[in-house]
């Protein structure tokens, strides 16, 4: 048996309130693509940070190519041949690709040499990138390529990828896998962190499953089923949702040609979005992040009131210029993507966080904005904590003391409890563990069945396919036509995510003329397009 590339033995790392890793052992062979599977909070990130030298373990040893190593910092890790591509990119927006890569490298090289080596690596692995482009003009997928090239330039023997596909279209994922498989075939070991089971089954040859900081299984994922993997990961199979057919009622939210120029330099212009959400239906908006979701949601919630009068109607009322509080009175309740700092104030208790969107505990609203009845407020918060099974110390627990999933349950609960007529939710289950995610999706469907109009914006296609009745795709500030969920396929939505929905029309016309035209994007700004 050859020497393992990386061997972790009984790694333990404790934090004041939690044991992040408990006696974790892991072996990666040369050329192996090894998955580390686990829910959020299972200890994957801590483990990777230990390998990469940014966190020191309390106990246990790390062996690299058979040698015991004590990696003190990421520089030492890179010197050993360990590279890491983080989930959140560390690129400077205002300078070019080459300059960004240069910043992270040995200073002996000139910018010229770095540019040349970027081009060389890019051609070798089919990673199409122009080193002279400023980073802010890149799509998220392209930024990730820059990060991968930067990692590859150090000629790593072990490459760590943290949730690399969370920002990619399905097609971009396929391209990434080609690169990773080529790397592995050349003998580079890959540690692939994810919670997406089908990806792991497709790509990886070995898998270590973590749950609550402990190893719960080591297996070959290609010989496992989604169900068996998810059982290892969460200890149970996720509950199945039932999606009842139901005839939608009257339109509750209507957007007519919403146009909004970007507010900040690196934002996205909203270019003529039209949309309708009816009572009793769930409309999903898919898309890669940074394509205008944030801007669209600001305009819908009332946090941005620059919309032209007449463009946004809620329940038949022109809401284009109404502030969030006024829109809430029309029955709109909104769960933003950022929980801490937007959906909740981190340093306030849950009870007081109710006041952000709820008025029930306010007496005499005319006097000083209203009197806060603290007892009633706490009782109400306690009800929501109980009803939505939020794990929290009580209504006085600080918002920041809750885990991401529990805080999300509380915020979703707070908004659903208001019996909204229109419910808008962004990334409902981002960073939420599987059990809580199923619960939140169930609550969304229950709301729909009760006749509420629901708009879900998400980057997780699986989730959208699970809850939506119709799907739109947003790309570069434009919204695709909607497609009923029965007619939507992952491939089609994936293509639309690159802004290619107009091709359908083209192809249709071409078929009518008896000839097929394939795939040139019909969008302006085609320099961004990468199929």
């Amino acid at each position, binding site marked *: 048996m050859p020497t393992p590339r990386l061997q972790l033995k009984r790694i333990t790392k404790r934090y004041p309130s939690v044991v992040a890793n408990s006696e974790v052992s892991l072996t990666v062979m040369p050329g192996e693509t090894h998955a580390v599977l686990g829910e959020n909070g299972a200890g994957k990130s801590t483990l990777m940070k230990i390998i990469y030298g940014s966190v020191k373990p309390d106990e246990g040893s790390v062996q690299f190519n058979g040698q015991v190593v004590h990696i003190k910092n990421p520089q030492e890790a890179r010197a050993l041949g360990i590279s890491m591509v983080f989930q959140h990119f560390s690129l400077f927006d205002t300078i070019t690709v080459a300059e960004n890569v240069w910043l992270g490298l040995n200073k002996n090289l000139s910018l010229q040499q770095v540019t040349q080596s970027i081009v060389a690596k890019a051609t070798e692995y089919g990673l199409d990138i122009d080193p002279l482009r400023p980073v802010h003009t890149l799509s998220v997928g392209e930024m990730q390529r820059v990060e991968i090239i930067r990692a590859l330039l150090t000629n790593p023997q072990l490459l760590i990828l943290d949730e690399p596909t969370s920002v990619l279209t399905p097609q971009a994922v396929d391209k990434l896998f080609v690169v990773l498989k080529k790397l592995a075939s050349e003998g580079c070991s890959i540690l692939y962190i994810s919670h997406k089971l089908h990806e792991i089954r497709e790509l990886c040859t070995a898998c270590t499953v973590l749950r609550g900081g402990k190893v719960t299984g080591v297996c070959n994922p290609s010989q496992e089923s989604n169900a068996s993997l998810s059982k290892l990961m969460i200890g149970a199979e996720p509950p199945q949702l039932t999606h009842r057919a139901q005839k939608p009622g009257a339109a509750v939210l209507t957007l007519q040609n919403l146009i909004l120029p970007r507010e900040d330099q690196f934002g996205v212009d909203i270019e003529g979005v039209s949309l309708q959400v009816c009572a009793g239906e769930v409309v999903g908006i898919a898309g890669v992040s940074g394509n205008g979701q944030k801007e669209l949601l600001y305009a819908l919630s009332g946090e941005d009131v620059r919309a032209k009068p007449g463009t946004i109607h809620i329940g038949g009322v022109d809401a284009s210029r109404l502030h*969030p509080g006024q829109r809430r009175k029309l029955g709109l309740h909104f769960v933003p993507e950022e929980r801490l700092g937007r959906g909740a104030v981190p340093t306030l208790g849950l009870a007081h966080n109710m006041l952000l969107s709820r008025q029930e505990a306010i007496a005499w609203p005319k006097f000083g904005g209203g009197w806060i009845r603290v007892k009633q407020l706490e009782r109400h918060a306690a009800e929501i904590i109980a009803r939505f099974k939020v794990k929290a110390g009580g209504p006085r627990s600080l918002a920041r003391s809750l885990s991401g999933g529990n805080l999300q349950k509380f915020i979703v609960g707070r908004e659903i409890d208001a019996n909204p007529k229109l419910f808008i939710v962004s990334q409902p289950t981002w960073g939420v563990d599987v059990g809580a995610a199923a619960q939140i999706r169930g609550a969304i469907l229950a709301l729909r069945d009760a006749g509420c109009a629901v708009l879900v914006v998400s980057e997780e296609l699986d989730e959208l396919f699970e809850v939506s009745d119709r799907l739109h795709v947003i790309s570069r500030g434009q919204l695709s036509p909607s497609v009923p969920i029965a007619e939507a396929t992952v491939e089609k939505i994936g293509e639309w995510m690159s802004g290619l929905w107009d091709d359908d029309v083209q192809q249709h016309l071409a078929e009518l003329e008896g000839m097929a035209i394939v795939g040139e994007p019909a969008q302006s700004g085609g320099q961004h397009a990468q199929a």
Partner: protein
Amino acid sequence: MLKLEARPEPSKIWTYGSPVLALLITVLIGAVMFSALGKDPVKGLEMFFWLPIHNAYALGELLVKATPLLIIALGLAVCFRSNVWNIGAEGQYIIGAIFAGGVALLADASSTRWIVLPILLAGVLGGMVWAGITALLRDRFHANEILVSLMLVYVAVQLLSYLVGGPWKDPMGFNFPQTKTFESVTRIPRLFDGSRVSIGALLALFSVAALWVFLFRTRSGFALQVGGLAPAAARYAGFSSRKALWMALLMSGGAAGLAGALEVAGPIGQLTLYVPAGYGFAAIIVAFVGRLHPVGMVFSAILMSMFYIGGEMAQSRLGLTKSLTGVFQGLLLFSLLACDTLVNYRLKWRTRGGA
């Protein structure tokens, strides 16, 4: 090896313990400092921590100084809690004094005691006007409120010296830059004979209660604080940041102006170049040492007032410089900031090194 370890939740005990520990450290360093200056440390500390409270008259003087500090700090707490950095309370205090002084100068033999009311209201108005300039510039032109409010302090000082050296100068005053002494009818009513404590102290205590209610029981107060704690959450909730800006600045300006009116129509009794006594700046320390909490600020205002009186005592009795007041203020703020680490972190001894 001593190690700091993050606490999962801020410590309740140290939230209150930290100011106490900070005071102890201040006393210790103060004792060392007196020894280094060749003075008996016990005597030195006595100036600061015993003489100001040793009899009824001294206590009265303590309250006279604590009152303006507390009133200004209460207003500033509203600002700081809503993330509006008004550090120009001194200027708002001066303009409040000028407005109040202007009304007091109108008094003549026919005036009644009720003239005190318009004097105080004029003070409030003056402070609000001055803070309103900062709010306006911030609101309309995104001018940084820290700079604007601070600069306006110096404008206020110039305005005061123009008035007392020009149009409002006492014609019988031997050309000193000061107004005539106000009619005795304008004097803020005192609470007891033989003490200079006035109804200002009651107003301050009333304001403490009012601020507590505003911050912790009204939705407007809540909205203001959310704007300070998490601006995106305030935007999400629909709390207007402009309203918060205006409200915070007008409230703190009004409070500072009230303090100015109470001073000028109280202990001072005329407008002079000595109206600005640094209360507006000292109140910033009062506000932070008092945790921006209405009740906490009562204690910190009294403490800060002790430092003022102690400095004067140290000068007159020990022949030390009055700047000791500033040294003690600085020591206290410095040790408080250091001790506050313990709220979010705990100290841990680690026996083995490295790791």
